[in-house]
């Protein structure tokens, strides 16, 4: 270990590569789209036996949750990275999904389990999402308007914020009455295998509703990716756009966390892969590709784990592992800007 730890600025390492022309984006979209559809079909149909009226809806429910999560995570990550001007920060790395869990827990702690349960999923979800948007925008304002904070600092602060939120949630859970906590465990314990149908419906509406403004922002997002000054110079209402994007991200993260719990590196994995596959910057291409990759990773991964290895819920651990490696690779390649 040499003494090279001086406070070097996070300079840009230019990798002088020849442009690698991959397949045109349109072809990628078709290929990925067909793959995703095939995987979804396989997930629904492989080994289908027994009482169809029972098995099929269950599978539909699970695959629906996976697709929703893929959309929510893919869109929120790409949007977030564009707004923050880099390819490594993601909402969940910044501790957003841990924040959502903390909000859920605090709410349960403050109101008590029974009150929370009588509220019913729609109202509960609405309250949680509102709090989420409020707190996350406060957090972002603090983090991003500090002026000239380096990306590495933001990353580290974000990660430690995640630890803090998780620690605080677990503290609150332990402070609860144990009998209350047992009631709530069902609520907290999210997984693809037991998604509440009502929650799925609400999530579908929320995700669908948010994809419309996200899609309509796509050209503006292309401009935003050039940096704040250039974007303002080209007439983009910077503040409004960024605020809108952050609100969209907060809600999407809330949806995916509510559905299946936290997944710190899934978004990073999907966006890194999407940018790698198509050397494209246009959101009209990157957004659908990221979403499709997400569907392929989740549905395909689950399918392989279940059918080949006969594991059932280890997917999140595998994703965490791969995503962590991708993150390390991005850091070590000095591509973090």
């Amino acid at each position: 270990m040499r003494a090279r730890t001086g406070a070097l600025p996070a300079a840009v390492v230019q990798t002088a590569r020849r442009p690698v022309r991959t397949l045109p984006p349109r072809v990628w979209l078709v290929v990925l789209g067909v793959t995703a559809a095939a995987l979804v079909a396989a997930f629904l149909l492989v080994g289908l036996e027994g009482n169809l009226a029972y098995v099929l809806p269950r599978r539909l429910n699970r695959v629906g949750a996976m697709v929703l999560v893929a959309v929510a995570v893919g869109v929120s990550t790409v949007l977030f990275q564009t707004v923050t001007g880099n390819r490594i920060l993601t909402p969940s790395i910044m501790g957003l999904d841990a924040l959502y869990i903390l909000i859920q827990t605090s709410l349960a702690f403050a109101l008590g389990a029974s009150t929370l349960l009588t509220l019913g999923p729609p109202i509960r979800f609405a309250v949680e999402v509102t709090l989420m948007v409020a707190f996350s925008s406060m957090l972002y304002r603090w983090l991003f308007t500090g002026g000239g904070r380096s990306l590495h600092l933001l990353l580290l602060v974000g990660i430690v914020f995640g630890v803090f939120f998780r620690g605080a949630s677990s503290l609150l859970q332990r402070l609860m009455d144990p009998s209350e906590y047992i009631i709530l465990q069902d609520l907290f314990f999210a997984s693809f295998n037991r998604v509440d149908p009502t929650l799925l419906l609400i999530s579908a509406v929320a995700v669908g509703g948010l994809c419309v403004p996200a899609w309509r922002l796509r050209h503006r997002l292309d401009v935003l990716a050039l940096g704040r000054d250039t974007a303002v110079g080209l007439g983009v209402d910077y503040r409004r756009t960024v605020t809108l994007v952050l609100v969209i991200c907060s809600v999407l993260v809330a949806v995916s966390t509510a559905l299946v719990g936290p997944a710190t590196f899934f978004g990073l994995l999907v966006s890194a892969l999407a940018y790698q596959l198509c050397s494209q910057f246009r959101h009209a291409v990157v957004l659908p590709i990221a979403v499709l990759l997400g569907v392929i990773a989740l549905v395909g991964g689950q399918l392989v784990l279940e059918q080949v290895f006969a594991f059932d819920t280890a997917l999140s651990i595998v994703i965490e592992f791969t995503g962590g490696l991708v993150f390390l690779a991005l850091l070590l390649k000095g591509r973090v800007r």
Partner: protein
Amino acid sequence: MITLDNATKRYGPITVVDGVSATIPRGGVTSIIGPNGAGKSTLLSMMSRLLPLDAGTVHVDGLDVSTTSGQTLARTLSILRQENQLTVRLSVRDLVGFGRFPHNGGRPTVVDREHIERALEYLDMTELADRFVDELSGGQRQRAFIAMVLAQDTDFILLDEPLNNLDMKHSVDMMRLLRRLVDDLGKTVVLVIHDINFASCYSDTIIAMRDGALIHQGTAEEIMTPEVLRDVYDVDIQVELIRGNRIGVYFA
């Protein structure tokens, strides 16, 4: 015409630009000069609404920059900052295409394509159009961004130290280009510049700032005198007339 009325910018207790009032005429090259920390770039940023004003107003072509919508302004004035670091990887043509964003909102038409090709041609970038921006040399990259600004097709073009990081040849090329924009296309160019001799040779108007205040405004003839320059820079600068240009000699 750009009209500044009492334009002021403060950072906490420090006033960076202190009540600047001025009129920059339409057409022509206007250079803003002054020592480091005089507030030149801040002033330019306020003129181009990249920074909000703390007091006073700026009107560009009659539009108040604080209240006019971003899109309308982007069709009237364009701004090029000195550091243009891109996180996205895109080709020169794609970059220039962004200049049309204020006009088409991201959906290019035939007219837009013509604008883009014209801008590329004007800057002699047609051959480089399919290269990625991050593969270009500093001078080429600067020209690519100028092409984008040109494609934006605004009457007013603001540039913050466009000669930064350019060698002599590229600096001369850049200033000639700006001159052509004014003489051939009737644009109004405002730039912040450090080299007083480039300012002297290529400007119609020079604005001199010091300590956040505008202290002199005039033609090159009026500004390029030992007295005025001393006032601005606190240095004795001889001014020689060389081939009709006033050149300040301050190297020894």
